[in-house]
């Protein structure tokens, strides 16, 4: 559509320009005889500059034009128009100035219709286009409506030619189509068809416009009827080939769609001047035999003047061979059939080589046919040996095809190539070492020597060595040399920072701080060794890990904003685990946050309460939002797991001071369904703080990176302290039991007794003993239990009581399984 509009505009401009020259001839014939007028030349200069978007040239021509005494008002108007469109064509055009020029043109009463139309259409097209932005939500049709109004205005100009009226109709119809007023569009174009005194060309234009719109609106039969009418009225022998082929293709396309390809071809063959169209259809239908014969016949020719035809025949046969995927045919064409042509014309060899290279190198359509791709590459190299890009492509394909011996030979050739870079040479040598080698240490030594002696001293780095070892290991792995691959991988691994798992002690503290304020004041966080540091840049980062780099510069955090890293301390008490995050913050930012403005990086945290445990995912927005997300579940509630529920079994809170943001995360012990930790027990934990592009404690390469979680190690979990935890958990177990005993809450222990809704037999056989046993434990849970009582009840009954519902459901499943498979 855009293309159509541009063609119209160009047509109008061209028409405008010729009209100006005509006007010049008419208005100043006498003067021309005396002193040759500069005006026509300047008009042409201005027009040319405008077409080339040359503003300086256009301005100069315009200024000169305005000085001409013989310039007519119409020419002045045209000059303003051309200057305006040149200004419009500039990047970041000053549209107000452009419009001013257009207004100046239109303000001249003698302005020609061509210029008027050009300006109106220019404005219409801009309005139209504004309704079709590259993105965003578009609710209105204002631009199209404006364009429609302008096009209508244009159509009503007095003195328009038929062709101008036809064009205006087309523009109006186009706007109506975009407004989905399709019937009105048809009517508008039918009006143009019915204009009086149309020449054949004008009739052609009007009818084709109508037919094209019928076709676009899927009214194929109506369109077809018009195409046929136009064709029938044309002098088929003389009609311009483009117009004729257009009509033929439209009609044949419709026949093919409704009656099949054979009918379309039969019809075409019944028409004059259709040989090429029929051939195109035959080729498209992959009917290659005819073309092969023709090309072969051409190749048999000996006329020296027709060598270009024979080169063309070779190219044609190559295309067919590739289309057919026939490697043998390709080789025959290039090497045998082409041989005599190469003798005739030495340039042909290079030409064909480049054609072959063009077919293969980087062409995606050949990606699925590697043997054909390799064949074209090899043939290209046979005709024009030594092209490094083609050799590199050959290597790539050989590698993809696991042709290791061939790849080695190609690399050996590349190493000797004069254009090979030192880097490439190094990598090729390393790959060859991996292909030839067996023992990892020996291959690694060879590679180290290669790097040490690399031609380019910039390559003599540990980073380059690590990368080369990696590539060699990949080659070994791809060959199935597992031990070599693993060995090289491990040798490379030794170059990396031996980064011990980050660990942090979680001591039990009897009088632990209860909120952020108390935590900040607590001596525990004053000792830096009690703090974990989120100093690991989130993501993959080889340089960060290289031992040599680290040894020289330490653990550099790239792209640091200069602020101190986030740190955290973790402790526990009888209620749960408390983790305080300390996030230094610039005073200005802290002040804004306090007022509820700005934003602070949120947290993404993972916590698994043991190596074999599912992990929890916690997303906590930074202040001022501080929203907690806990809806990514790795399991749902079951006997061994409880989902996080904000403000029920965990919570977070923030405090913003003048230069720091604190976040306290509190986790209830009831989440630890695998038991209360003993001394040395490990929870896996990874906090990622999305500040400074993400910093983590464990070293996450990506999110949910379980193996890189750090370790929280519990300490001071003395029997006395563990009893304190048990004491805090038992009331929760009792509450769980009571819920399941309640008739009000649909408790599962109570339910089965109900003769109407439950199952009295099941209750008597299975639930009643359970109820008696664990009801007694629940009843024994009281505020003033001795430590001994706490330990006994916890050890004997906590896990069942807290899971009462799940135990009863399991008992029910087993009971029904038994019942249904024992009793009919």
């Amino acid at each position, binding site marked *: 559509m855009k293309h159509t509009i541009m063609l119209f505009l160009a047509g109008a401009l061209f028409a405008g320009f010729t009209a100006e020259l005509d006007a010049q001839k008419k208005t100043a014939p006498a003067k021309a005889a005396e002193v040759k007028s500069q005006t026509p030349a300047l008009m042409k200069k201005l027009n040319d500059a405008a077409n080339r978007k040359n503003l300086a040239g256009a301005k100069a021509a315009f200024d000169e034009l305005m000085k001409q005494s013989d310039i007519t008002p119409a020419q002045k108007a045209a000059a303003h128009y051309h200057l305006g469109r040149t200004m419009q064509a500039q990047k970041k055009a000053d549209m107000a100035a452009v419009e001013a020029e257009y207004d100046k043109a239109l303000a001249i009463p003698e302005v020609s219709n061509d210029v008027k139309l050009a300006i109106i259409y220019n404005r219409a097209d801009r309005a139209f286009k504004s309704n*079709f932005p590259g*993105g965003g*939500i*578009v609710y209105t049709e204002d631009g199209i409506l404006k364009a429609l109004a302008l096009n209508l205005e244009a159509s009503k100009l007095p003195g328009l030619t038929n062709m101008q009226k036809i064009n205006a109709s087309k523009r109006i119809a186009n706007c109506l189509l975009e407004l*989905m007023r399709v019937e009105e569009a048809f009517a508008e174009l039918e009006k143009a068809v019915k204009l009086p005194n149309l020449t054949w060309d004008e009739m052609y234009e009007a009818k084709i416009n109508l037919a094209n719109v019928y076709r*676009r*609106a*899927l009214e194929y039969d109506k369109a077809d009827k018009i195409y046929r009418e136009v064709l029938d009225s044309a002098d088929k022998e003389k009609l311009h080939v483009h117009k004729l082929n257009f009509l033929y293709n439209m009609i044949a396309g419709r026949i093919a769609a409704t009656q099949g390809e054979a009918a379309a071809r039969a019809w075409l063959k019944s028409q004059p001047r259709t040989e090429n169209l029929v051939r195109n259809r035959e080729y498209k239908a992959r009917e290659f035999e005819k073309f092969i014969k023709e090309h072969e016949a051409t190749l048999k020719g000996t006329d020296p003047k027709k060598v270009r035809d024979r080169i063309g025949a070779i190219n044609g046969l190559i295309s067919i061979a590739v289309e057919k995927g026939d490697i043998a045919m390709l080789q025959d064409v290039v090497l045998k059939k082409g041989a005599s042509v190469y003798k005739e014309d030495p340039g042909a060899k290079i030409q064909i080589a480049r054609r072959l290279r063009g077919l293969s190198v980087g062409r995606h359509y050949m990606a699925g046919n590697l043997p054909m791709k390799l064949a074209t590459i090899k043939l290209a190299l046979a005709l024009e040996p030594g092209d490094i890009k083609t050799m*590199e492509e050959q*290597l790539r394909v050989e590698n*993809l095809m696991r042709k290791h011996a061939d790849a080695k030979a190609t690399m050996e050739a590349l190493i000797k190539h004069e254009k090979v870079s030192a*880097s*490439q040479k190094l*990598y090729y040598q390393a*790959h060859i070492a991996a292909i030839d080698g067996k023992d990892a240490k020996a291959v690694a030594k060879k590679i180290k020597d290669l790097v040490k002696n690399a031609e380019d001293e*910039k390559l003599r780095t540990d980073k380059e060595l690590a*990368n080369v070892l*990696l*590539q060699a290991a*990949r080659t070994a792995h*791809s060959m*199935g040399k*597992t031990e070599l691959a693993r060995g090289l*991988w*491990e040798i490379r*691994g*030794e*170059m*990396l920072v031996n980064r011990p*798992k980050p660990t942090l002690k979680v001591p039990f503290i009897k009088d632990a701080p209860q909120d952020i304020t108390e935590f900040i004041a607590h001596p525990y966080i004053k000792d830096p060794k009690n703090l974990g540091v989120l100093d690991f840049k989130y993501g*993959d980062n080889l340089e960060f*890990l290289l031992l040599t780099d680290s040894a020289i510069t330490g653990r550099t955090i790239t792209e640091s904003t200069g602020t101190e890293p986030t740190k955290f301390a973790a402790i526990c008490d009888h209620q749960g685990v408390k983790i305080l995050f300390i996030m230094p913050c610039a005073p200005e930012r802290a002040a804004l946050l306090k007022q509820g403005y700005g934003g602070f990086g949120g947290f993404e945290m993972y916590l698994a309460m043991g*190596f*074999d445990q599912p*992990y929890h995912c916690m997303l906590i927005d930074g202040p001022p939002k501080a929203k907690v997300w806990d809806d*990514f*579940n*790795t*399991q*749902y*509630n079951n006997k*061994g*797991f409880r*989902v996080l529920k904000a403000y029920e079994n965990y919570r977070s809170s923030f405090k913003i001071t003048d230069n720091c943001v604190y976040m306290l995360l509190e986790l209830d012990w009831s989440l630890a369904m695998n038991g209360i930790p003993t001394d040395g027990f490990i929870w896996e934990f990874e906090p990622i703080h999305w500040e400074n592009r993400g910093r983590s404690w464990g070293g996450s390469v*990506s999110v*949910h*990176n*379980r*193996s*890189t979680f750090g370790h929280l190690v519990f300490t001071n979990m003395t029997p006395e302290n563990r009893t304190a935890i048990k004491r805090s958990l038992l009331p929760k177990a009792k509450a769980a039991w009571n819920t399941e005993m309640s008739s009000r809450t649909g408790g599962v222990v109570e339910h089965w007794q109900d003769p*109407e809704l439950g199952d009295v037999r099941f209750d008597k056989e299975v639930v009643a003993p359970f109820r008696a046993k664990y009801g007694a434990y629940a009843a024994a849970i009281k505020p003033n239990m001795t430590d001994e009582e706490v330990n006994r009840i916890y050890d004997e009954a906590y896990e069942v009581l807290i899971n009462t519902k799940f135990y009863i*459901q399991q008992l*029910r*499943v087993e009971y*029904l*399984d038994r019942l*249904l*498979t*024992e009793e*009919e």
Partner: protein
Amino acid sequence: MKKCLSLASALALGAFMAVGTLQGAPNAAKLNPDNPASPEFKKNAAANRARVEQLAKEAGVKSDILHFTVRPMSEIMRLGDVYPTDGQFNAPLRAVAAQGEYEPMSFQLFALNGKKDVTFKISDLRDNKGNILPAKELDMKVVKIWYQNGNRWNSYFADVDLRLVPELLLKDENMVKVDTDQVANYARIRKDGKDTFVWISAPKALETGFNAAQKGFEDAAELQSVKLDKDQFKQFFVTVHVPEKQAPGIYTGTITINADGKNAGVIPVKVRVLPFELPLPATYQKLDQPVVCSVMGGFYLSTFRNIYKDEKLAMDRYIKAMKNAKAHGMFHPAVNQTAESLQILKDLGFPTDGPIMGSNFMPWFARNFGGKLTFDNMMAAKAAAKKAHDFYMKHLGHSKNILTSYGDEQGAAFVVTHRNFHKYFEEYGIRVGCAGHHALFYKGAHTYGVHPMGGAPDSIDRIKRWRDMGDIWVGFYASQHTGSENPAFLRRQNGMLGYLNGANLLDNYEFAIGPWNDLDSVLYKPMVVSYLNYGGYVDTLQWEAYREAVDDMRYCTLLQQEIQKALASNDIEYKTEARKALRFLAIIKPREDDLDSIRSEMIVYILKLRKMANAQKKG
């Protein structure tokens, strides 16, 4: 400059070049507690031995191979040192199944002494009327524990290291070799009687692709001898398939264990065949709307052709895969939209009367970020709708509820730009959908017919508002995608959790065809539900979970049908029983209630209601 040189080398070296990656850190997993050589594992194994010996003593069992029947769909990650807390020692294997249903059973063996050669013989099962449920209907496999990334049991995300997890269901446990010293999986390639082993768990940076479809890499047709390690548990799956015509009743039989040439015990098997077949699942509380059971990927014939290269082989494996899909409850697989593929669906008895996962044949307008469609775009959509209609009329005889998608995870601007063309498809009954988030509802709910919602199946509010739009299919994906190996979790998410919340579409992402290397991706793990190899797909715990999820919905559908029958009767007792069943469904907490318990309860209600219905008929 160095970067430029490296890039040039990368281009030249093609697939063999990898950028430097962090995955070079020394492998610490060797010391993980899941390694049998670790102190933690040994400690657990010793404790388990003591516990099992005590049970054997109490039960008077003399064998040194002891068995526990366990829940096949369990949250318990059954590694060698994990005690089966849900297990029943020395108990019979039991299953309750409808006619035509596949139902899993599972048991674990614990070896007091290591055994190199353990084989099993399954007997025919018989009822008291002399009917036989043949042994061939009991498909027994060993649950293979192998290395997957550290998120193994818990999520679909990528990771840089490996941990052990039970996942594959194999006839030949040696199809994959697991080396706990090297922390590695190897594929066994058997050619001309010789075995070679290919490392299939290399770090991503080393991975150059493993052709799992190569000849010689496949599972056995029959269960092979297995090895039992001393003081370790090993899990087995026995999936019973009840033929459609099987007489209802209680069938009993045995699985006899033979270890190193000696009889090592017998496991009784009891299967209750229920007197009904299961219907296809229908939407909860809207029984006239089928639930769509599909998944993104996995079942394209074109993919099989690309993988196997050989046409005959590809077609054989594809037909096997499709039968496998149907047997797993995937009634609406997304297949190539060709006459050939649709014919295969029909031939294999997939439901093709709609809904069906189809295509809208729409051209892509590349307006991901909005803008305005042109008249020609709209007409292209109209033509595509006609083309789709004609295609489905020709090959299926209808175009009603052909479920199609256009775009993926699109924003508000995309929806506003494109929503107007949906009407052309709606005119033919073809539904356009898009996976994604809130914007699709706010800006397009009135025009969409299908919506995989990017969220969790427990997002009741998000599901509800889509269902409030009426005749629409809504499902979930991403929270989670496929990939977690935990069958209980998968069963819950794909089954009753979403179902009772109103979801009626399973179309999660994705049923990936490989790779076998769980480290071979960056952000997400390869979401392989079932692993393709030369022999076809091998089953997995999560694939079995999909079937159980669908079967839960089928049972619930049948129960609702029975309820509706009862509610339509004039018998107050019958009606009241139906209302009790309704009450039961209403109080289910699908996020946490025991799914086996829900299933059993549904069966009890179905049997009760059917019995009352029969009594009514007789009365």
